[in-house]
């Protein structure tokens, strides 16, 4: 049967693959580059699948574990640092096992392009002793997710699935099977030996896992997405194979590089393509290594395949040199690319493919990401900055769009570590430096995900700090997902809006006030009032993200009234405010009409304008 082709983003392909594999429940927490997977399941849900954005990754994994105990096929989605949050249930679940197939997608981000770390989920898989699947394209991801469910049920274990950014956010023409496998969960059957984790059962389960994993490795040696591929070169000396191992998207870069380099490479090339770095397909690798003297390895993040090959060579006493990240042949960090593969092949084979095209290119302006024009976070940071002027203060930030509050000229993020850490880092700094005002900035989604426990810690341990909640009524950075404060769910149901103010009051904070950050005077006064008190105080800045609201009006600068002092540029750093000669202009296509600049201009030169940008 000819399958239909759809143009799909890798994340959409993963979602569709899971739907077609009969997934019953999907839970996750947003995180680039994984977010669109769950969104796509929700969008294409025919009503049979339960989908939720959980409050964080730990909650998502546990919800899925429960459903899986009851026989459901479950998918959990997160980014790689989300797996750190979910690692507590993950490590134990690896021992307990599952009934319904369970696939945990943890998207890695080489570069990193949008992440705190370049951690490698394949290591996490080996640490947790769980199988891991590593697709090299959206097409492969679509097929592989179904395989992942099959392996999960075959071995009664959760499995990890780790695409990388270029697979997640690459699109391709994917052949899709429109049949949906029907999976009717049996329901939860009580069995304390199985579902209650105890030291004694853990010991026995540990033995079982150690016994099982080599078998999975054996199974993976014949898995359809692990293979040895010969690319013979016409006229090349027979037997003189260049051995290269590759995994994930690096396999695609390798294939492309070989195509581009063409006859520049005069040797036959033999490729070992690895889609399951753990348990490693040892038998297949031995077949590949049997007449190799040197193997080059291309993979992103950590040298996982590379070290497995070194281990196998040692174990089987093979005289093979493995070249890759460990010996500096391949770059140790960052993304690979067709060019990076070519450059390694150039130096290894002593050829000179490609040319330097740099020439006399003029210097380009730096363009770091910034808070959008009209972003309420800019107003909030500015208000706190004004209120804290002249005081000794530290500003702890967190994960979200508001990390961008660190850039000039706001410069209002002194620390950023991980989700929720702003609240607790502020407490630690305060213990050592009690004369400092400690501000902690946290977004609404982050507050629900992992901020609340930190606030309770602060109140219980009687610390002194000012919590600034930046409530823009959405999870902005990852593309505007709902959360417990928004009152809607991924099942398109209206839910109770959980009030951050009520939570803080219930915890027993000394001071809680909600203000609109765009009312600058009021906002500064609230922060000053909070700063003047003792204990744990909070100011909630409430104003919606510009992406979920409509612009009110536009502003423009009166050329006659502008004195060219540039205070608006020096203090706000709004991308809509630009220089033009000695004066200031507002870029009409960017202005959102927030009006913050009108409250900063000492001459009242910024006024609302009509649609054509003329001053009213």
């Amino acid at each position, binding site marked *: 049967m000819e399958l239909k082709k759809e143009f799909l983003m890798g994340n959409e392909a993963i979602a569709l693959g899971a739907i077609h594999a009969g997934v019953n429940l999907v839970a996750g927490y947003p995180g680039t580059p994984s977010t669109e997977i769950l969104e796509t399941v929700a969008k294409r849900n025919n009503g049979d699948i339960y989908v939720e954005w959980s409050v964080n990754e730990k909650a998502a994994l546990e919800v899925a574990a429960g459903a899986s105990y009851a026989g459901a096929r479950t998918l959990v989605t997160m980014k790689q640092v989300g797996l750190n949050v979910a690692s507590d249930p993950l490590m134990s679940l690896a021992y307990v096992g599952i009934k319904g197939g369970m696939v945990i997608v943890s998207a890695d981000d080489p570069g990193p392009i949008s992440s705190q770390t370049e951690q490698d989920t394949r290591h996490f898989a080996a640490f947790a002793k769980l199988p891991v699947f590593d697709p090299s394209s959206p097409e492969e991801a679509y097929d592989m997710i179904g395989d992942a469910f099959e392996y999960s049920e075959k071995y009664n274990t959760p499995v990890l699935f780790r695409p990388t950014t*270029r697979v997640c956010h690459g699109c391709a023409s994917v052949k899709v099977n429109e049949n949906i496998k029907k999976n009717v969960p049996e329901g939860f059957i009580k069995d304390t030996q199985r579902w209650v984790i105890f030291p004694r059962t853990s010991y026995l389960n540990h033995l079982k896992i150690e016994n099982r994993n080599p078998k999975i490795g054996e199974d993976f040696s014949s898995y359809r997405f692990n293979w040895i591929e010969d690319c013979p070169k016409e006229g090349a000396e027979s037997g003189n194979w260049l051995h290269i191992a590759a995994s994930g998207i690096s396999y695609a870069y390798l294939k492309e590089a070989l195509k581009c380099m063409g006859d520049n490479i005069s040797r036959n090339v033999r490729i070992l393509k690895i889609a399951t770095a753990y348990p490693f397909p040892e038998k297949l690798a031995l077949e590949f290594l049997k007449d190799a003297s040197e193997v080059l390895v291309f993979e992103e993040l950590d040298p996982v395949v590379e070290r497995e090959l070194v281990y196998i060579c040692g174990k089987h006493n093979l005289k093979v040199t493995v070249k890759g990240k460990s010996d500096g042949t391949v770059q140790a960090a960052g993304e690979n690319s067709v060019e990076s593969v070519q450059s390694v092949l150039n130096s290894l084979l002593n050829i000179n493919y490609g040319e330097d095209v740099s020439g006399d290119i003029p210097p380009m302006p730096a363009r770091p990401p910034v808070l959008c024009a009209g972003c309420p976070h800019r107003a909030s940071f500015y208000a706190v900055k004004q209120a804290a002027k002249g005081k000794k203060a530290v500003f702890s930030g967190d994960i979200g769009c508001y990390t961008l509050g660190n850039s000039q000229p706001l410069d209002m993020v002194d620390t950023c570590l991980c989700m929720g850490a702003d609240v607790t880092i502020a407490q630690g700094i305060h213990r050592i430096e009690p004369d400092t005002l400690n501000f902690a900035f946290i977004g609404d989604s982050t507050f629900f995900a992992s901020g609340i426990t930190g606030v309770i810690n602060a109140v219980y341990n009687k610390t002194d700090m000012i919590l600034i909640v930046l409530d823009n009524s959405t999870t902005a950075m990852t593309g505007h997902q709902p959360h417990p404060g928004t009152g809607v769910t991924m099942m398109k149901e209206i839910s109770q809006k959980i009030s951050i103010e009520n939570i803080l009051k219930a915890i027993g904070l000394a001071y809680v006030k909600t203000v609109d950050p765009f009312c600058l005077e009021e906002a500064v006064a609230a922060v000053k009032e909070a700063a003047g008190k003792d204990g744990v105080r909070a100011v909630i800045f409430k104003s919606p993200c510009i992406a979920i609201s409509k612009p009110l009006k536009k502003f423009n600068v009166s050329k006659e009234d502008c004195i060219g002092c540039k205070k608006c540029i020096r203090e706000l750093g709004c991308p809509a405010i630009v220089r033009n000669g000695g004066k200031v202009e507002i870029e009409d296509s960017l202005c959102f009409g927030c009006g913050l600049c009108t409250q900063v201009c000492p001459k009242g030169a910024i006024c609302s304008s009509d649609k054509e940008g003329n001053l009213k």
Partner: protein
Amino acid sequence: MNSVNNCLLCGVGGQGTVLASRLIAFAAMEKGMDVRTAETIGMAQRGGCVASHVRVGKNIDSPLIPKGTADVIIAFEPAEAVRCISYLKKGGTVIVNDKAVKPVTAALMDSGYNGEEMLDYLKCNIENLTVINGDEIYGKCGSFKVLNTVLLAAAARSGALGISKEELESAVLKLVPSRFHEINLKAIEIVYENK
């Protein structure tokens, strides 16, 4: 046309490069071609540099265009065209919007960046260059939102995209919300009418 057509779209987050790449991909898929793309999604979308790689043809492996092989670069901003110029193949085509997006860093440091130096470089070095007067188009269409369609139309008209005017129009009708159909079709007409 080659067996593979590579198109790089580059600009500043928020300018609409992702929709433009979707329009090309849709038009190519309609003709029975395979498409592979890579997009910038995430933090860089907040006013940072973004690039969409669109590759049309059979047996394409890498989602990223290898440097020196882009048939056409569609640049939404002058400096972004220059930033990506190493992707262009010899004799490749560049379509560039002449309106600079001035970064906050430029305003703070008073670098005077206005895109002119970038356009001069392109004019001296790129034979097949089409400069689009962004402001003029806005004036005629009455909206900033048609920039992506305008640039695509210019690329289609140059022949380097491998997509006809009609194919682009049908992609717009399929992918763009219906309330914006009229303005986008008008933008395509304006580009094709321009001498």
